[in-house]
């Protein structure tokens, strides 16, 4: 690529001029990029948050083994060593019913105060908390434990995790198809805009070639035009992202505190997504102009 600091100003002027000259086509292209990036942005925000939630849950997929109330200390010890001897189990921890109540109260925040009533007559069980070596083994191990003596019941986040991953997968696929379609539409519109510019400039281009302008000199304004169209298309999506994620975080946080649902923090998440959107916009723009330049410029 022939570099061109002294002519950059000229290329920029030419690019901006033709944005204005084909105002309607420019607006159409920018809108296409805008719609595309709005969708990409929404999609990324949802996917990354769902992924975060899913992996949060996955990380502490643990099996809570409720110990039968009739079990004495001896039976309890036996059960513990049986659990520890399971091949797929990483560790086993005892938690008394009082500790369990405490956890419960904490997880409900201020509303948890009302559970304090139960401190006198705790309805919960003593439990063993079992962690497997790999999260996927959780269901198998849970089934095995369920059959053991002195086990009243087992609990783990099976359903939630399964459903969540299903949601993540389905929406990922829908999103990808939609976005690919939109990206191509946007690219097509940009390449058409550039084509019109090239056509409007065919005499200039002819003379440039005659007097010995280099191919890169001739191409630059068209690349810049595509790049601008793409970058301008990213402006609204980024603004929408910043404003709406900020309010989402502010509104949602009080409700979801303490639960396993958790939003990624505003910074740096929103800035990363913004950068990705800008990058995608610019790439769409450059790609769109590349297609036209290659096809119609013949330099």
């Amino acid at each position, binding site marked *: 690529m022939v570099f061109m600091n002294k002519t950059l100003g000229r290329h920029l002027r030419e690019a901006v001029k033709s944005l204005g000259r084909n105002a309607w086509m420019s607006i159409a292209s920018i809108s296409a990029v805008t719609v595309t990036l709005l969708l990409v942005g929404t999609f990324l925000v949802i996917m990354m948050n769902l992924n975060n939630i899913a992996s949060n849950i996955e990380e502490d997929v643990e099996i809570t083994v409720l110990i039968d109330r009739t079990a004495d200390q001896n039976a309890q010890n036996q059960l513990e060593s049986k659990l520890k001897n399971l091949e797929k189990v990483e560790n086993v921890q005892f938690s008394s019913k009082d500790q369990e109540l405490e956890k419960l109260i904490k997880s409900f925040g201020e509303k948890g105060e009302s559970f304090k009533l139960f401190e006198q007559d705790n309805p919960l069980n003593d439990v063993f908390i079992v962690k497997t070596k790999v999260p996927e083994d959780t269901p198998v191990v849970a089934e095995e434990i369920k059959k053991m003596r002195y086990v009243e019941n087992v609990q783990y986040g099976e359903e939630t995790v399964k459903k969540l991953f299903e949601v993540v997968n389905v929406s990922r696929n829908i999103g990808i198809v939609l976005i690919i379609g939109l990206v191509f539409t946007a690219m097509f519109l940009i390449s058409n805009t550039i084509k019109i510019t090239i056509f409007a400039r065919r005499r200039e281009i002819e*003379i440039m070639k005659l*007097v*010995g302008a280099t191919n890169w*000199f001739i191409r630059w304004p068209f690349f810049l035009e595509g790049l601008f169209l793409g970058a301008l298309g990213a402006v609204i999506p980024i603004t929408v992202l910043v404003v709406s994620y900020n309010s989402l975080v502010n509104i949602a946080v009080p409700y979801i505190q303490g639960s396993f649902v958790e939003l990624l923090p505003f910074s740096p998440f929103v800035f990363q997504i913004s950068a990705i959107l800008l990058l995608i916009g610019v790439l769409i723009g450059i790609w769109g102009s590349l297609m036209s330049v290659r096809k119609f410029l013949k330099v």
Partner: protein
Amino acid sequence: MIEMKDVYKTYSNGVLAINGISIKINQGEFVYIVGPSGAGKSTFIKLMYREEKPTKGSIVINGIQLENLKEKEVPYLRRNIGVVFQDFKLLPKLTVYENVAFALEVIGENPKNIKKKVLNVLDLVQLKHKARSFPDELSGGEQQRVSIARSIVNNPPVIIADEPTGNLDPETSWEIMRLLEEINNRGTTVLMATHNKVIVNTIRKRVITIEDGKIVRDEARGEYGLYE
């Protein structure tokens, strides 16, 4: 300066436009290219500035071997050759000054030099007073002078003109010829394809006659042939 050896050109539609041409033109010569319509004059000219590639044969312009020339080296070849056409090829939305400056801007000339060079060359073609006019405010002869100014503003060693007087009345044509002679007198090689018998027979120069893609005559002080 310009040398062709056994050059052939067949267009993609099968037309054999140049059928074995060898020629040598020295620096500072003034050469007319004449011949009947369809003889291959324009093709001959296009081969020199690499608008067309020869099917066979070697061409050297100002030391540049055209057959080995890569696509991205073509612009640098063209900076050695000023090209002038019958239809002027001026940009209608640019002034006279801007049209000439354009040729320097797009080859990355230092902006500091542009003004001086453009005014110099407008002086030479006697159009300094029209610098701010637009092409459609000029006569045909004036427009052709602008286009000649544009072709020489970068000071190329050779200029090639394809029927530069083709669209002009006789009076104006003489004006253009005087200008081309003046440019030639400064050492620039001038090649000019023309159908203008009076000019060729009055301003006597080397005449290369092409018929059916072949050179049939090449005389140092030639005359226009007997075809019309």
